[in-house]
Each structure stands twice: as C-alpha cells, then as structure tokens.
C-alpha cells in the first residue's frame, strides 16, 4: 500500500498570553492510499493543528511531513500553494464557500490554482454526483446546509487530490447529511485516496478504517 501522508515526530507550539500551548507534541502518523483515518479528541486537543500541518498550511516546529513522496515544507511558498492544489482537498466545518459565486463557480475556484481545459466538465460531473445539478446556478445563501457541504466536497475533489483532509465536516450537519458526507469520504478512500478526518463526533469514527485519539497534542490509538 502506497503511503500518501506521513508525519514523523511533528511538533507545533503556540505562544499565548497565558503560556505556551503544545498543540502537536511528537505526532507520527502514516496513511496509505485507500485508507480512511479518523482522529477524535476534545476541543483544543490539537486536531485542527494536525490537519493544517498535514495540509501544507502550517509549518511545524520540527518533524517531517511527507505527502505523496515529497516533503512539501521544503518547497517555496509559491510551490507549496501549487502542491496543495495538485494533491490536497479540504473540507471544513464552515464550508467556506465563496458567497458571491454560484455552486458551479465555487467548485471551479479549485481550478484557479490548477487550470485545466476539462475543469468545467469535471465540475459539472461532481455537481451531478452530489445531487446539486438543479442548484448549479445558485449562490450558497440559497442552498440548504447539506447542499453547501456537498458543494464544498465537490470543490475539494475537483483537482483529483490524493489526500482529503476534513475538519469536523459533519459538525454543522444533521444526521442524514452527516452520513452522506461520511459516505462520500469513505467512497473517496475506496477509490484509492487517503482520508484524514478530524472530529470530536464519535459516530464519524464508525466510517473509518482506523480511529485515532488526540489529547493534549499527542496522538494515540483509539
């Protein structure tokens, strides 16, 4: 099984007025192609920090991050952006759709970083797959919460990433929509992608192949 994401002894601390917070404390993790890993843990345990470090958005203090055989933190800032576009898809709790763009254009924002002739065709395919075909011309404020998260999922998948990172994707969803999203993540893994899901929702772990637990910046088997 090819390793898609590997973290070795990653440290990350933050300085705050009330002292130093060790958000990641010697985190090591390996996720292979086709694997769906869920990390559970209470709020403030460092899950989002882990996700940012894995997502090439936050340079760790120490340790190694390898994604698809490359060490992205050794690249320049520009190259790192390109690397994210090519390899990583993000799904957030707050969806982070662009308010003024309709569903199709929102999905296509992923193509801003990685232009391709067939981007629109793929975007329409994803929209269809997520049952949003009739909503393609609507802006986020006109969508239901579930539709918004599916649009965000479509955007995350547009560039055919190897790694999908999801931060509390079900946090704002009802059970049915939450299940839909988790099914989709599982489907992505089944198709050969690697999924890292961080959540404090115990039910979400049920969809994963492997559940880990995070506490005070330390990762342990669930």
């Amino acid at each position, binding site marked *: 099984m090819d390793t898609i994401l590997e973290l070795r002894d990653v440290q990350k601390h933050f300085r705050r007025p009330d002292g130093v917070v060790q958000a990641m404390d010697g985190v090591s993790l390996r996720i292979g192609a086709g694997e769906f890993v869920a990390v559970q843990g209470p709020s403030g345990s460092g899950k989002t920090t882990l996700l940012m470090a894995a997502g090439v958005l936050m340079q760790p203090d120490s340790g190694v991050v390898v994604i698809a055989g490359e060490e992205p933190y050794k690249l320049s800032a520009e190259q790192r*952006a390109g690397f994210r576009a090519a390899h990583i898809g993000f799904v957030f709790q707050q969806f982070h759709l662009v308010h003024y763009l309709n569903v199709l254009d929102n999905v296509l924002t*992923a193509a801003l970083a990685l232009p391709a002739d067939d981007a629109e065709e793929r975007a329409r395919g994803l929209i269809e797959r997520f049952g949003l075909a009739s909503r393609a011309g609507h802006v986020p404020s006109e969508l239901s919460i579930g539709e918004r998260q599916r649009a965000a999922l479509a955007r995350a998948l547009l560039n055919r990433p190897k790694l999908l990172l999801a931060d509390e994707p079900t946090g704002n969803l009802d059970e049915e929509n939450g299940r839909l999203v988790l099914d989709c993540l599982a489907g992505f893994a089944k198709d050969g992608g690697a999924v890292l899901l961080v959540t404090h929702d115990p039910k979400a772990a049920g969809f994963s192949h492997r559940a880990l637990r995070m506490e005070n910046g330390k990762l342990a088997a669930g």
Partner: protein
Amino acid sequence: MNIGRLIICEILFRKLSFALGVLSVFAAVGCLVGALASLREHDRRTEQIIAAKQAETQEKMELLADDYRRITLKLGFNVLILPKDQKLGDLFADDYATKYMPEEYATRLAKSRVATINHILPSLQQKVKWPETGRTILLMGVRGEVYMRGAGQKPLLEPVQAGKIVLGAELHQGLKLKVGDTTRLMGREFTVAKLNEERGTKDDITAWINLAEAQAMLGKEGQINGILALDCTCADARLPLIRAEIEKILPDTQVIEFASQAIARAETRNRAAAEAEAAIEREKQGRSLLRSEREAFAAVLMPLVVLGCAVWIGFLALANVRERRGEIGVLRALGVRARQILWLFLGRAVAMGVAGACLGYAAGQAAIAGAEFNVLLLAAVIAGAPLLAALASWIPALLAAQQDPADILRQE
C-alpha cells in the same frame, strides 16, 4: 474560471461598496475634467471677447480712416512740391507758382516709392483771363494720380478727360452752367463734367481741365508747376522727413506744407487706435488674471480631491479585504497563489478607476456647456484613475495576499 470572472462576480455581489469607490473616482475625475474644461472654456471666451473688441476697434478705425480720407480731399493735400527757384511770396501773391519743372518729375517721384507719401498728383496751374466771359480764373491742368502702388490704390482725384471741364462754385453759379453744357475757354470747346460745391477757397474760381490740354493752351508742353503729394502714412511722418526724402529724389524742388489739419486728424486717429489697443491690452490682462486665479484654485483643489479620493478608496479596499478574509483563506488553501490574491484586489480597484473615469469624464464635460471632446484627456483619466485606485488599494491588497490561510481557517 479566472481571477477576472471572480472580480466581476464580486463587484456584482457587493454593488454598493463598489459604487462608493466608483463615486469617489467619479467625483475626482469630474472635478479635474470640469476644472480643465472650464479653463479651456475661459480661454475660448477670452479669445471671443478680444476678437470682438478687435473687430469693433477695426470698424472704428475704418470709420476714422474714411473721415480722414474725405476731410483730406476737401482740405487739399499735405505737401506741395514746387520748383526750387519758386519764391513763396510770389506763390501766395499770385495764387499759383510762376516757375516750372518737367512733368516727368512726378513719374520719377512715383517710381522711387517714397515711403512717407501715398499719393502724387502733378498739376499745371495759372491765373488766366477767361476771355469768353471776362472773368479771372485759376486754370488747373490735372492728369490725375500717378500711381505708386499699383491698382489696389483708390485714386484720390478723378482725372479730367480731354475736352472736359470741372468748375468751381463761383464759376458755374455765375455762368449758370450745368453738367453736360458746353462752354468755350481760350478758343477751345469744353463740356462741363462736374460742378464742385462751394468751398470758400480759391477752388471756387478754379477750372480743372486735362493736364495735356492745359499745357498746350498755356504753351507749357511737358511742364508742370506743382506736385501735390499726400502723406497719410501716419502722424509720425513729419514734414522734415518727407522733405528730406523728396529733395533727395528731386534736387531742384522745394517742399512746403499744405493743409496741416489732415495731419492733426491722423494724429487723432493714431491716438484713438493707441487707446483702443490699450483697452484691449487691459481686457487681456484682466482675463489672464482671472485665469491665473482659476488655475491657482484648481491647483489647490485638485491634489486635495485626488488625495481624498485615494484615501477613501484605500479605506474601502481595506474594508473589502476584511470582509473577504474567509474567502482569501479558502482560496489560498485551494492553492491560489498570493500573487493571484493581490490581483483579485488590484483588479477590482482598476475596474473602479475605469468606471469612475468614464462617468466622471462624461459628467465633467456635460457640466461645462460647450466643452470640446478631448481624446487625450479622456485617455489620461482612463489611464490615470485606475492607476490611482490601484495605488490606493495597494497596501490592503498586499495585506490580503500575505494573510496566513491557516490563521483564517482556524478562526473562522
């Protein structure tokens, strides 16, 4: 999908914020175009006013010149050129010169183009008895003007054709002669060509006939005894000057002044002209003072307006960047480059500048009635306003591009 489409969609979504930016560019460009157009309009008005004044002056001068011509004709001529040996005492006692010179002198004078003289009229004049009527008259042989400057010059006295006679008032009244009547003078027959009005001078007892005929009748072939010369160049052309010039060309002549009123008139005319010139000059100065005041006002107003506009756009851009933090964060996470984010905001500023420039130009033009379309100015504002807007948005755009996506995404 590209940054341009993103910019357009965002502008359409946040119309008010964009419109506020456009409005400030519009105001600045409108002020600039209006100020420039009003200065141009000022110049145009000045030209009009000055041209009108000049036309008015010209007209007055022409009227004066007309008067001058008419009066000069009635008075006689400015200088009289006589043979050198002519005693002036005899001239005044006899009413005519008793010495003679060749008629060719007149031609010579004309050919030498004396600058101070405009008209040359040779004559042969003698007091004679009109044997057929028993009267004493002044017989004047004239050949009309010897032209100096070609056909454009209007002759001052029409020459009297051979066989024709022009009579002074005293003569035609006393003899009861009409135009077309025939009369005999020293054995020759003449047809009355013209009757002069009473002038109260010796002209009243003068009979004008053709010069050649007079020369034959008086036995003075090829001879004249006076050249009337009219100076109308200007009041500065004083007698000594004229005299010196003429005596250089015709050494055995003398020049005496004649009818100095004409010169006085010319002086008046010149003074009037100078006065009119001065009035125009004063008007010009007044207008130019007004212009420099307007210019100074614009010079103070414009930088203020431009600065105000830039600050306003800068604040709007900053507000826009703050409002779009989440969007910036997610776009950066998706791999959009910092440079693209910079352009996302600069492009918006440029669009604001172009829209404001077009509207502002149109409004500025419309506000000043009769302002001409100026492609150069339009091009300048269409290039300048977006540049200004982009510069004003530069710092906010840079802030947007440098924002840390991890920070944003964690907080939002």
